[in-house]
């Protein structure tokens, strides 16, 4: 970055976002005015009990859903009033998703799974998608598992394929929804160590979790209850996942 044209915009700026669902005749307020700003390079844990609105917030941040009211800027661009197609393009270019259930395509090789987002790139800039996918898999330590199918990989490895898929488009923001929910503590620590190392390389991460042990590995912690932010503070007793991993090994 040379000759900066001003301070870089925050990755996320959310002002007064609400979300109201209608179920039959009754209206349910899932989010009741949330303000949030996330700068580049942060690693944030979003916590809250089920029904607290954290999934709704994640869906809105992930451009899978639009807020009922309020303002959401992603990477300096308003995205709260976009059409379905525009949202799809934003997801493709700016966001990477990691899910609790991995969500890989079955009977499809790791390489082809990671290639998937590149196939939907409309800019036409992507050249050799297979090479890009291969590099992303190397980055998560699976350079030797390119042709394996999900069923031939362990849970931790599957989640790393999913992370490679999220990284392959070089997104502005990586969103993880309970990324260790289906993993044992061993694999969990491995995945969190990977997240920390990616964060060290400058990737902005937002991890939704209800597990305080996972939250420990982040830099900032926010908590929702009844659709409102009730806590937003730097993580206390922050740990390196690699240490925890080594401790578990010992």
């Amino acid at each position, binding site marked *: 970055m040379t000759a900066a044209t001003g301070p870089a915009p925050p990755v996320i700026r959310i002002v007064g976002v609400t979300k109201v669902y209608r179920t039959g005749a009754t209206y349910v307020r899932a989010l009741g005015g949330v303000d949030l700003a996330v700068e580049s390079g942060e690693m944030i844990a979003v916590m809250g009990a089920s029904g607290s609105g954290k999934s709704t917030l994640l869906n809105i941040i*992930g451009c899978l859903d639009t807020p009922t009211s309020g303002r959401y800027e992603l990477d300096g661009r308003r995205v709260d009033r976009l059409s379905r*197609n525009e949202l*799809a393009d934003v*997801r*493709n270019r700016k966001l990477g998703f990691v*899910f609790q259930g991995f969500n*890989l395509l079955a009977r499809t090789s790791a390489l082809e799974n990671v290639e998937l987002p590149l*196939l*939907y790139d409309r800019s036409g800039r992507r050249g050799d998608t297979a090479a890009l996918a291969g590099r992303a898999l190397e980055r998560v330590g699976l350079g030797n598992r390119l042709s394996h199918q999900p069923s031939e990989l362990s849970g931790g490895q599957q989640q790393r394929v999913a992370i490679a898929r999220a990284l392959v*488009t070089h997104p502005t923001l990586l969103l993880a929804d309970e990324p260790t929910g289906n993993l044992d503590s061993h694999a969990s620590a491995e995945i969190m160590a990977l997240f920390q190392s990616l964060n060290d390389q400058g990737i902005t991460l937002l991890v939704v979790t209800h597990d305080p042990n996972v939250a420990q590995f982040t830099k900032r912690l926010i908590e929702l209850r009844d659709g409102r932010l009730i806590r937003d503070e730097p993580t206390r007793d922050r740990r390196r996942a690699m240490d925890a991993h080594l401790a578990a090994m010992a």
Partner: protein
Amino acid sequence: MRASRLVRVAAQSLRRNTMRTLLTMLGIVIGVAAVILTVAVGYGAQARIREQVLSLGTNLIVITPGAVAQAGVSLGAQTFNRLTVNDADKLAREGTTFSGVSPVTMTRAQIVGGAGNWRAAINGVSIAYQTIRDWPVQEGTFFSTDDLRARRKVAVLGQTVADNLFPDMNPVGQQVRLRNEPFTIVGVLSPKGQTASGADQDDVVLVPYTTAQARLSGATFIGQILVSAASPADIPAAQDELRAILRESHRLAKDESDDFTVRNQSDLAQAAQGTTQVMSLLLAAIASISLVVGGIGIMNIMLVSVTERTREIGIRLAVGARGSDVLTQFLVESVVMSLFGGLIGLAGGFAGAALLGHLTGWSTATPPSAWLIAVAFSALVGVFFGWYPARKAAHLDPIEALRHD
């Protein structure tokens, strides 16, 4: 997504369920094969009929005695067979659009000579008959104008007659007896085959019509007058002209209807093809119903597939696929299935038609347009019946789809 990738992705997901894909395709395979088979049989029959009618002669116009029915009442009863040799002469003399005119007297008689005896049609014709019917001699010559003028007792044998009376020798120069009159054989006609109605055209003896009238039947009325127009474009004009000449010759008043019937080759072909055409259309229509049933099979399976793969659709939407991408993917899948099925059906239909032709001796033929229509139609079936499931997939909500299990 680029086209090659679309097809690759579609092929990939179809391969994951090979058995189901094959069974779904089977509907289209059977549908297209059935259509091709019926078209092949129908088209083959029609091509054969057309060929046979065309083999009757060049730019042929046939005049037969008797009027066509008018308002359901035949007016020809009293005027039956008023065609005469004079009519033919007048046509040959006055016509400007004809390249040939020949009367045809018709009788049947026992032919004695050579290896024994044989009963066949004896037709009295003029020299022009040979060119009108486009019927060259294989051996010897046709009779000459001199023969005609002098009413000489000469005959030209059809192939069937020659084969039966002279199985081992050249009949040219030999004698046969027709109604106890000795005739010298001057030539043998080349084989002509069957008519559209199955009659053997080669079972005939041609003699000069003058001789036939003087020596054989004695009748002055004749069964047919054959006229050939100068060119295919002249046929309508020639028909008008010969009607005018014949009406004058028969002294018909303006309000009287024709006492003869004029038909050209396409009339004959149409009349002969009428029934086959209706039959083959009917068969093809029944066959295409199975194509529609095959299409419904595709729709059914695609709907199941969309439900089964809801999560996959969710994943694709989450990583940035647009609704149109998902729509295209599922459409391509159904089109690949129907198109592949169509191609296999096409091959199957061809093989079936060839086998049927081989076993039954029917002539079968498929016009190239039938291949194109079959392939295009099966692709269309894929689009038509794939549209609804694909649209359903494209309109899924990504959040709901990701939560689906």
